[in-house]
Structures are given as structure tokens and as C-alpha cells.
């Protein structure tokens, strides 16, 4: 982990240097022409016009309340790009957000070719919709996606994201700073490190205390129980092993059932999920297949 951390940083420095050299004009120009009030990008034509309008309406209503852009992107293919890269580039290039470019945004992207699904949270949504919350949302909507119930899946996405955005995140102490460009990558990394142990119940002192007390109680109980002497005979003590045996037996095959289950994708729940875009915007994320 430490090595990859260093690697990430050096890569980042390299990226930033490249970015400084690159002409900045084009992406910003694009961001300006981008319609920030448009939330549904159904490039794969999975939705009917009516559904699309309905989702657009719900997304804008919910979005207003949470000051966040709920964006849905469907793709036939990503032109060879990884879906994570695609989403990051989408954010960098178009700069979506509720009322400002590169603002609070949560994106659901699905790629029909690779059958990839990816959720990413930026800015406030990165804090409120951390990796684990995005994992929960993704797990909930994946069955619908697999069944081809795209409208249902997208509704689940907007509703759940809306609900989670209304609840304080688990790690309140790591507040969101609002500075999304240069400073955030490091913040993102320290978030991961500090955030992990406190999430796991095993690392909680109260849990450890309870375990210790239960352990001590059980051991003392066993000691008290054994103080009176134990039964030291077992099933073999009195058995006549020469004459005790199975006299007759049969095992008839009756029937068989087979159930199948989708193989869990390797890169799901791998802890990460989030990352930093080339434009320096850190985000949370959850990735899977459907």
C-alpha cells in the first residue's frame, strides 16, 4: 500500500506537470457550452423518451434539494477507454455540478459492451457517498441492470443517492474542504487510511472490551465447570469394536439440482473505487459488472 501510495504521488506530480504544459483552452471552453441542467445521457438508447424525461425531472428535483447533480450515462462502448477513465474524463471535460462547473456531482455510468457499471461521487458527494455507500447502491441496482430493468435501476440510483446525501457520512471528522483541485489528492489518500480502521468493528475499543469480557467469562465458567471433575469415557470406551459394524447399507442417488451465480468481479469491493481525475478532481467510486 505504501509503495502504491508513493507511486500514485509521483504519477500525480508527472500528471500535473503534463497538465501545466497542455493547452487549457479546450476543456474549459467545452465546460462552458455544457448544459448543466441536463442529467440523463442515454447514448445507448436504453430508455424510452418518456422514461428519459421522467428521470430528468426526478434528477433535477432531487438534485435541487441536495445541491448535487445526479447524472446517468449509458454507453454502447467507451472507445477503448476504461469506464472509470471515461467518467473521470467526463467530469474533467464537461465540469458538471449543481450550480457551478466542477461542482457536487454523482455519476452512474454503464457500459453495455463490457457490461461495466461505475458510480462516482465528486465534491460533497465524495464525502457523503463514500466508497462503501456507493458499493451499497451499486449492489442494490445491479440485479435490475442484469434483468434489463434500466429505468428501475436508475430510479434506485437517484433515490438512494438522494437519501444518503441527506445523512451525515460515517467519517464526519474528515470534513470536505471545498478545494477540489490541487490539494485534494493528498486529502483523498489520508481519508482512505484514517477512514478504514474506524469503519471496522474490530478496531473499536468498545467492541474489543466486550470481546475481552465475554472471553474471560467463558474461560472462568469452563474452569468452574471442570472443577467438579469431567466424564472421561467416550463412545469408544465400552464399544466392542469387533462386533459393532454396519451390517447392510445402500446409497441411492435420487436427484440433483444445479444453481448458478454470477462470478463476483475481481475489481469490486477492492477498497479503492475512488481516485483522482487527470484534472486533479478527487472522487469516490464503486465499480462492478452486471
Amino acid at each position, binding site marked *: 500500500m505504501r509503495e502504491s501510495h508513493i507511486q500514485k504521488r509521483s504519477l500525480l506530480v508527472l500528471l500535473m506537470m503534463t497538465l501545466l504544459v497542455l493547452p487549457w483552452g479546450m476543456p474549459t471552453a467545452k465546460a462552458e457550452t455544457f448544459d448543466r441542467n441536463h442529467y440523463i445521457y442515454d447514448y445507448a438508447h436504453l430508455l424510452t423518451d418518456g422514461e428519459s424525461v421522467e428521470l430528468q425531472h426526478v434528477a433535477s428535483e432531487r438534485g435541487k434539494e441536495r445541491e448535487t447533480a445526479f447524472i446517468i450515462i449509458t454507453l454502447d462502448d467507451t472507445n477503448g477507454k476504461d469506464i472509470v477513465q471515461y467518467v473521470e474524463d467526463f467530469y474533467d471535460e464537461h465540469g458538471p455540478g449543481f450550480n457551478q462547473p466542477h461542482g457536487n456531482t454523482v455519476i452512474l455510468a454503464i457500459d453495455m459492451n463490457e457490461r461495466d457499471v461505475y458510480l462516482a461521487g465528486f465534491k460533497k458527494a465524495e464525502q457523503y457517498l463514500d466508497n462503501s455507500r456507493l458499493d451499497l447502491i451499486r449492489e442494490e441496482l445491479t440485479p435490475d441492470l442484469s434483468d434489463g430493468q434500466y429505468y428501475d435501476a436508475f430510479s434506485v440510483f437517484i433515490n438512494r443517492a438522494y437519501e444518503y446525501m441527506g445523512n451525515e457520512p460515517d467519517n464526519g471528522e474528515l470534513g470536505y474542504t471545498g478545494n477540489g483541485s490541487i490539494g485534494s489528492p493528498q486529502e483523498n489518500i489520508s481519508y482512505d487510511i484514517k477512514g478504514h480502521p474506524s469503519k471496522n468493528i474490530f478496531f473499536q475499543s468498545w467492541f474489543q472490551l466486550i470481546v475481552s469480557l465475554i472471553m474471560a467469562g467463558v474461560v472462568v465458567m469452563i474452569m468452574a465447570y471442570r472443577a*467438579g471433575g469431567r466424564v472421561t469415557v467416550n463412545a469408544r470406551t465400552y464399544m466392542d469394536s469387533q462386533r459393532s459394524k454396519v451390517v447392510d447399507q445402500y446409497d441411492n442417488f435420487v436427484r440433483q439440482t444445479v444453481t448458478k451465480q*454470477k462470478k463476483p468481479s475481481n475489481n469490486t469491493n477492492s477498497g479503492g473505487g475512488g481516485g483522482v481525475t487527470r484534472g486533479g478532481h478527487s472522487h469516490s467510486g464503486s465499480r462492478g459488472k452486471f
Partner: protein
Amino acid sequence: MILHYKCPSCGSDMSFDAESGDLSCQSCGRHENIENYPEELVTTRFSADEASEYHCENCGAILITTAETAATSCSYCGAAVVIADRLSGQLAPAKVIPFTISKEEAMAAFQKWCRKGLLTPKDFMTADRIKSITGIYVPFWLFDLNSKVQVNAECTRVRTYTQGDYIYTETKYYDAFRDINLDYLKIPVDASVKMNDELMDKLEPYPYDLLKDFKTPYLAGYMAEKYNFTDEELFPRAKEKISGYIDSYISSTFSGYHSTRIKNKHIDTRNVKSNYVLLPVWMVSYDYKNLDYTFAMNGQTGKVVGKPPISTGKVTAWFSGIAVGTFFALKIVSFVMGGELW
């Protein structure tokens, strides 16, 4: 009829000696081999109510006994006496395991056992308040049981394999049947109403290779009782003792399966043979803080059973020690793991 053993050389009282396994005379040291001792008791018949009062052969005093007492000492002169009509005919034991642990050894072994108790109060450990220590031949029935078992079960075997993007779980169902013959030999069940069953069960096992043909001189100097329950009355308890063994044997015959659901089970247990035997037990009565504690010791193996008092102080010490230790261990583990995660 009262049996009393007089030394042929000096005329003093003889009693059983646990160390040599002979009848011995305390005055002149003469040893008398028991196995060659003439025994005509088993064939002698007494009517059940022949005598309600027994007189000591040695001094003539009345022997104070309960209805079950088969061997005791005269409370007046101390001579070892055996009440023969309570050990004859129907009541004659087939076998006996003689004591090999003498009274002094039993005392020492008990004191050693007391010191080992982790939760025993400190002043109990000294074991200096032993009220009495009595060697008793406890009546037992040894059951030879034969069980015929028929079991029908639905069993499953589960296999998982991966093909393409899917994990397949294949469950095969089998209709399985087992016809099992089980023989259990010499299951001991105590036949005395005075003895605590739980305590007696914990005293097992007894070394059956030391079973000797019953001779009355083995009882000289000890207490002995005749049985209160017949083998027929105790048969249900013998069956109960082996029911767990039978169940574990049945499940061992289905070991190749992932799950076994017993559909029907038929167990028919018969009493092949039951022998009346006397097994040696030292009973220790201990007075601690005005409460009586009873312990039993296997007179052959020296195993001690019985609930000693529990010290609150020691329980607290162990409890807090383990709790604090575990807590710190967990802290260290989580610290190390946290470090690794980083």
C-alpha cells in the same frame, strides 16, 4: 450369618490390604491369599428375613446396620465383619474390583487434588478439615448391550465449479440406509440409591482387567452395600448412557456427505447380559465453613470428582486477568493490522 476373619496364627482381626491385595493381620503381619480362600457362600441359601438383628462374631455386640449394608465394622470392637446373607444367592456379586488405594494414599491423593484446583479457596486447599474418609464397595450393574439400528436419511453432496462467468452449485440428493449392529460391553450403572449418579458417572472408567471373582474377604475392613435396584430397573438408564454413543456412531457412517437429514431411525437395544459387581470408591466428607462437601475417588485409579467450593476472590482475579490480557492482545493485534493496512 456374619463372617469375621480371625488370624490363624495369632487370633487377631484380619482385614483386606489394598497394597498386597491379600487378607492381612495387623498384629502379626500374616498374609492370607484371597483367591485360594474357600468360598461356599454363593451356593448357600438364606431366607430373606432370616435375621433382623446381627451380633458381632468377635465381641457379641449388636451390629448397627442399614438394610443395605453388606460389610461394615463393629462399632464396638472395630472388627471387620461381612453380613453374608446380604451377599448370597440373588444378592451375590459376580465380580469385584478390590481397592488398590489404601486409606493413607487416598488421603494424600485427595489433598494433592485440592491443591490443583484453580478456583478453590486457599484455606480449602490445605485439606485439613476432612471429616471422614470411607472406603465403600458400591454395587454396580455391568450391562452388555446389543443395539440393532436401522436408519434412513436424505443426504446431500455439494460440488461447486466455475464455468465462464458463473459459479455453479450442484447438489446431489441420496436416499441412504444403514443397518448397524452395535455391541457395548460392561456399561456400569450404579445400583445404590445413596450414590449420586452424576458423581458415579464421572468416576469412570474402571479397569475391567482387574475384575476378580467375588470373595467375601475382599470386603473385610470396608463398607459394602447390596443393590437397591435390579438390573431390570436400571436397564433404561443403561440405554440412556449409550444413546449418545449410538447417535455419534450413526453420524460417523454418513461421513462422506455434506448434510444428513435423518428421516427415520429405529433403535432396538437388548440386554444381553448384566452382572452384579462391587466397585471400590473412597467417599470423602469435607467440612468447609459449616457446609458439607462430598467427594468421591475411584478406589482403583485415584480419580477425584465432586464440586469443591469456589472462591469469589480467585474468580474475580482470573476474570479480570483474562479480560485485561485479552483486551491488550486485541489492541496490539489491531494496531499491527492497522499498521499493515496503512
